[in-house]
């Protein structure tokens, strides 16, 4: 492996969260053997290449972990087939499951962001303040801006943590609405009975 790939391997091993390409690119000036005047784009391109090399090195059947692109970053994760024995031995705990109410709210925020509480309430048909607070507390959504209009309502959006618990690289990996079996369509005008 190249020196940069080995440096990235060490950094990714040391970190317990996904590291973004930008973060990883800051590691490498000496490793890449470039001077001060190096452009950020060049460092990122080299980092990208080294990441590909590193992922290739861990991709084979010879390893229990793999390098995964997730939540806009990169992270070493255990392979799926080992989840059960590790969990049984209780070396690691599974994350708590999200309630249906929390998932509903997450889905609405993910697709409508930035979105205010009133819109979430309206779609769910339930007061969602407590659920929103809980999701903010868990770091899955955050206040991203304030809306126009009465009281300048807080608007929520999803966080990288949201992508991480779903194993998504980015929001564009969510299913498109028109791919769902229930596509939104205006109801046909009905005749009186």
């Amino acid at each position: 492996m190249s020196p940069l790939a080995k440096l990235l391997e060490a950094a990714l091993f040391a970190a317990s969260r996904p590291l973004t390409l930008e973060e990883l690119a800051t590691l490498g000036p000496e490793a890449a053997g470039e001077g001060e005047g190096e452009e950020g784009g060049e460092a990122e391109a080299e980092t990208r290449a080294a990441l590909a090399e590193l992922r290739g090195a861990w991709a084979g059947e010879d390893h229990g972990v793999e390098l995964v692109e997730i939540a806009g970053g990169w992270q070493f994760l255990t392979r799926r087939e080992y989840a059960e024995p590790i969990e049984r031995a209780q070396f690691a705990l599974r994350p708590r499951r999200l309630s249906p109410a929390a998932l509903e709210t997450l889905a609405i925020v993910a697709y409508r962001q930035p979105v205010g509480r009133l819109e979430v309430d309206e779609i769910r048909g339930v007061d969602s303040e407590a659920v929103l607070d809980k999701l903010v507390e868990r770091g899955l959504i955050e206040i991203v801006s304030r809306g126009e209009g009465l009281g300048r309502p807080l608007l929520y959006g999803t966080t990288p943590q949201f992508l991480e618990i779903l194993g998504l690289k980015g929001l564009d990996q969510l299913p498109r609405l028109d791919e769902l079996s229930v596509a939104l369509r205006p109801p046909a005008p009905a005749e009186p009975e």
Partner: protein
Amino acid sequence: MTAPSPTNPVLPEQSGFVVELEQFSGPLDLLLHLIREDELDITDLPIAKIADQFLAVINELGLNQAADYLEMAARLLRIKAQLLLPRRLGDDEWEDPRSELVRRLLEYQQIRELVGWLQQAATRRAEQLGRGYAPPSPELPPAPLEIELNDLLAAAERVIALIPEPMLHRVVPRPLDVEGATARIQALLVAQEEFGWSDVVGARPSVVDVLSAFISLLELAKRGALRLAQPAPFAPVVIRRESPREAA
């Protein structure tokens, strides 16, 4: 959640709702459940029937205390009433009072489908563990505060320093110089029998000057030292000495 039931929508009352409270995340969820259970067409809802079922279920589950469910029950009953008296929109068009509810149900159904997708993604993600993975534990009670008094005071000062000055209307005391104005007017009274407003306040009076002069003029008029007259509406005020005795 969708208990497959035989296509027999005629016997909803006897089907016996075995449902738990947590099973429904809201009135729309419950409605969808009823619709699926009876395999009804969501775009052509038999409102009367669904309203009765809805009321029966929330009574049974004790949800009739919950505002969200009650609001939906009221909405269903209103739609049921409106269906008896449809309103004409155009020549051949009739307003369907159900359309708003149907739109919301479809929208909500879409969200439920996304929930299923998110759930699967989360389950699949949970099969892979990161290094030193520690699940977030928001249930932990917050650590007891251990701070020094000085730190607390310093923190309080920082917070107070951040509070912007409230933008309230402030009354600025501007002392009126009524005595000065009175002296000036009395001097004028001695010199002239009759003079105008501008003689009292000068060419470019400040607000304070005007007020002071006005108050002292009224006061002197009350005392009988002078007489105020205005020959025509909006004409200049004429100030006239009342009696030589007072002016002296």
